[in-house]
């Protein structure tokens, strides 16, 4: 090893910070790199500065809870590089990062990817118009910039985040023109079976969720069972059209539309590294294949948090702790027996934190148009490739995402398929009667984050350029 840290952690959200604290407790040399300018991840974004403002009251207790974790992380003695992008990874493990216009390479004894989740891509006609954003984006603007829409917004989506943001927005004095609930009503039957487990395991969260729903239904126009939406406008959003599952449709004036269909693990880094992935059917997403400590198929590379499976902040903290314990044990800081003893209570808390998930996964399973959008929809936002053109490729005998990419440029733009790879796979699967895991995703090539030529040129001479 070349004097790098014992453990390099990518991401300073719940999982990354908790892992850093535990790894430091066991005497490991830890370095945390993070894309944001302050610790907290998306869930606790900007918590250090927002904690003492009126925003904290609006954002609620689950947000304020992050302040403690951030404090412990700051006090842990872990090295911390904010504003740093990891753009390439190699077995070894070795990470290439760029920060302040300079690229460099870091060898570590172990790497923990705590890179969290992204919102599930949810293509629909008009979703590229200015005025259409994700609910997550709107919430980030509230957390990090203290800003809210200056006119009534439409919210269309499912999942706890849509509800939570709607409640926060009302508290902040914002206005909601209407809430289009897109969860298929058929989900209820499946969710009902998980209801008892969720109530026993997480009574507080369940009551909170129902409370939000009731409050929202009282205060804003609420339209359920919405099956399709379309954003209409020239240079920006002007109108919104929606159709419900029972055939009711309407077109309304709209300047702002926030959409959300849940979140999926960030898998670009593990795809680029060649880790084995599995299909998580309950969450309709791929995830890295991990052992019970979070280690991937590439040795000494771990994943923890929502990047492993969607489980929320609490579960993410525990997954981070487990990975850190395992790394410490591998480094000889804990015996096998000690490892088992310290991990047991963490596993118990993890189980409790995940109790509500089966219920949420079923209740908020996205409607089919999220996966297979109407033909006119731009699937690839970057290169402007429609669903119809993807389907043409399948008809022309090119059933592989990489072939489709080569022929249409879909997935070749700056986002490198982050917004279209699932949709391309779903379209090809639907057309050919296959499944998404069978079709698979695009290959991911380095760099998986943009890097400038100047940054590359500054890479230390000894490092291997991929």
């Amino acid at each position, binding site marked *: 090893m070349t004097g790098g840290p014992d453990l390099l952690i990518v991401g300073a959200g719940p999982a990354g910070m908790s892992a850093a604290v535990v790894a430091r407790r066991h005497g490991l040399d830890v370095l945390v790199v993070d*894309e944001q300018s302050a610790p907290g991840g998306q869930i606790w974004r900007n918590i250090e500065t927002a904690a003492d403002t009126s925003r904290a009251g609006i954002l609620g207790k689950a947000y304020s809870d992050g302040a403690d974790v951030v404090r412990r992380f700051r006090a842990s003695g872990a090295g911390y590089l904010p504003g740093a992008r990891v753009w390439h990874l190699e077995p070894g493990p070795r990470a290439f990062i760029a920060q302040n216009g300079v690229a460099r390479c870091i060898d570590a004894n172990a790497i923990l990817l705590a890179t969290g989740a992204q919102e599930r891509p949810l293509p629909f006609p008009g979703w590229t118009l*200015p005025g259409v954003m994700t609910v*997550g*984006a709107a919430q980030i603007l509230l957390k990090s910039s203290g800003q809210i829409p200056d*006119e009534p917004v439409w919210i269309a989506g499912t999942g706890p985040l849509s509800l939570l943001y709607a409640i926060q927005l009302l508290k902040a004095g914002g206005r909601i023109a209407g809430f289009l609930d897109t969860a298929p009503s058929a989900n209820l039957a499946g969710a009902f079976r998980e209801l008892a487990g969720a109530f026993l395991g997480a009574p507080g969260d369940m009551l909170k969720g129902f409370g939000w729903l009731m409050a929202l239904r009282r205060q804003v126009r609420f339209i359920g069972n919405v099956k399709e939406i379309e954003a209409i406008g020239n*240079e*920006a959003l002007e109108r919104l059209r929606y159709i419900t599952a029972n055939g009711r449709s309407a077109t309304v004036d709209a300047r702002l539309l926030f959409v959300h269909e849940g979140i999926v693990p960030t898998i670009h880094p593990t795809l680029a590294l060649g880790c084995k992935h599995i299909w998580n059917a309950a969450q309709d997403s791929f995830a890295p294949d991990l052992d019970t400590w979070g280690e991937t198929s590439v040795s000494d590379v771990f994943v923890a948090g929502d990047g492993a499976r969607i489980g929320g902040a609490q579960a993410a903290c525990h997954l981070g702790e487990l990975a850190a314990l395992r790394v410490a044990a591998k480094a000889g800081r804990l015996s096998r027996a000690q490892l088992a003893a310290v991990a047991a209570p963490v596993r118990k808390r993890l189980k409790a934190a995940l109790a509500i998930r089966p219920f949420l996964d079923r209740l908020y399973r996205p409607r089919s148009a999220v996966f297979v959008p109407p033909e006119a929809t731009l699937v690839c936002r970057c290169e402007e490739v429609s669903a119809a053109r993807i389907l043409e490729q399948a008809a022309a005998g090119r059933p592989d995402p990489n072939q489709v990419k080569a022929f249409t440029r879909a997935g070749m733009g700056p986002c490198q398929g982050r917004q279209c790879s699932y949709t391309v796979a779903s379209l090809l699967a639907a057309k050919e009667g296959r499944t998404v895991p069978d079709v698979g995703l695009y290959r991911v090539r380095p760099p998986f984050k943009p890097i400038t030529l100047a940054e590359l040129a500054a890479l230390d001479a000894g490092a291997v350029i991929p």
Partner: protein
Amino acid sequence: MFRKLQSLDEEVTVYVDGVAVPAEANESVAAVLLRQSPVWARTAPVSCSRRAPYCMMGVCFDCLATVDGIASTQTCLTPVRDGMLVLRQKGRRSVRP
């Protein structure tokens, strides 16, 4: 399209296509663009239609703009600095060091 809940603390000035606009130290450039009218950051490469920040967390790349001379900067990941020059970006990215 968006407004601040409170008056700016630690006010700085950034220039969006040459126009001086107030901003708050350390907020993202994309957040500032979302308070301008009309809201957009770049145009799409084929249709040339306008795009605005969509995800605010670095995954959609529709917030790309030229910031202090560096093309295709993800403005949602870039904190503002006093005197920063932001140019909305047209068409395909140009490769510039």
